């Protein structure tokens, strides 16, 4: 009845080969916190091949490359990242975003790679990774390539990956002293919800002036957005009320949200601005200490 099969390749080449052989019916299993829900609900098509990538070392390892740069395997769990000795200091915003994916139980399994490839516009880790300027290493039948994280999602449930391609790892760039980041999301409860809006802000401060900024915004459009206009409003400012309001307005302006069970268009748009201001304040405070 359940002609769905399971494989657990030991190398990325094997995994890619399995995905190619599956001819579009391959499903990558990292933490399984989305895939298993779909499986149990009967949403995974018969004939699918589950490719468990957790036996591949590169997928599950964290590498501190110095200067704030990290390489994080696509299947590294939130808890693993939380317990890493140096990651938190360098990328607190990315860590808090990944650590907001589900409960502590989910944290033991869920990964940023899975979160990205589930391709939900409300994925918590993605706005923070976009703000961080993270790139993604993708491997497929034609070899490896590096892609900016914001280029991966194509729409709800859809990605720009070519057939057979797999997300292998994330690379977080090195950056100067005075840099830090923050991620905030709005949920109706204090835990266990999908973001109504998520906002990641990554800043570099020098002498009280913002010299670099990136802003990622989630759950307000079909894909997570890199809000360049918001970053522009922050750069060169002292993060004063006018700059913050201009950045918040830029965030509101790019919102193309929907009314659904989690929020309304009006509410999401408003909250995008609120979170931008709050996340910026936290990132700036952290940056001042770095």
């Amino acid at each position, binding site marked *: *009845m*359940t*002609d*769905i*099969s*399971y494989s*657990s390749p030991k190398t990325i080449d094997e995994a890619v080969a399995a995905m190619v052989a599956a001819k579009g019916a391959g499903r990558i*299993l990292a*933490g*399984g*916190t989305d895939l*298993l*829900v779909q*499986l*149990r*609900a009967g949403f*995974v098509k018969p004939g699918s091949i*589950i490719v*468990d990538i*957790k036996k591949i070392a590169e997928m599950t390892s964290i590498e501190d490359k110095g200067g704030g740069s990290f390489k994080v395997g696509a299947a590294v*769990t939130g*808890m693993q990242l939380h317990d890493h000795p140096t990651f938190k200091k360098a990328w607190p915003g990315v860590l808090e975003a990944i650590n907001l994916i*589900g*409960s*502590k*139980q*989910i944290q*033991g*399994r869920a990964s940023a790679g899975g979160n990205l490839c589930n391709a939900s516009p409300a994925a918590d880790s993605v706005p923070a990774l976009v703000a961080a300027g993270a790139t993604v290493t993708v491997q497929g039948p034609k070899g490896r390539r590096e892609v900016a994280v914001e280029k991966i999602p194509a729409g709800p449930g859809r990605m720009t990956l070519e057939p057979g391609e797999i997300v292998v790892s994330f690379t977080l760039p090195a950056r100067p002293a005075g840099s830090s980041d923050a991620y905030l999301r709005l949920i109706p409860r*204090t*835990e*266990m919800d999908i973001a109504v809006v998520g906002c990641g802000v990554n800043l570099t401060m020098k002498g009280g002036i913002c010299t670099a900024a990136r802003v990622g915004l989630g759950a307000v459009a079909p894909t997570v957005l890199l809000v360049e206009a918001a970053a522009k409003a922050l750069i060169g400012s002292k993060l004063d009320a006018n700059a913050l309001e201009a950045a918040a307005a830029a965030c509101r302006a790019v919102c193309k949200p929907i009314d659904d069970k989690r929020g309304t268009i009006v509410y999401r748009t408003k909250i995008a601005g609120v979170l931008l201001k709050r996340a910026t304040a936290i990132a700036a405070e952290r940056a001042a200490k770095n």
Partner: protein
Amino acid sequence: MSKLHVTTTINGEPTEFLCEPTQAVLDVLRDQLGLTGTKEGCGSGDCGACTIMLDGRMVCSCLVLGAEAEGKKIETIEGMAQGDHLHALQKKFIEFAALQCGICTPGFLMASRALLERNNNPTETEVRYWLAGNLCRCTGYDKIVRAVMEVAADMRGAAR
């Protein structure tokens, strides 16, 4: 659609089982191994009633494939008491009336033990956030949180 043969350790006992490629550890435990102490409340990782430990990390067993347990160490509620001695958390949950209907209790106990193994001096807020993935509809959480805090205090006292 042949079944997969999995070799694992459950509550310290070497255990082998056969499972469908799509079968979750929760179903293997409950339906094949008779370990029904692990409960299903939602099947989607939202209630925590099926919490187990997998290689020392707490997970929802509804969201782990049986096949993934190959070579791994599983701990369930059935392994929490040692012989005829209840774990301190089990005792305190009874003493503090931290359970009413009891369906969420195995999951709360597994999650609480995992917390105290990492941190035996949690604040109330830390306890509440750690346990946010476990739903309880009977108690309003008050007595559960108190029981966990009290056991943590006892552990610190004993360690002194």
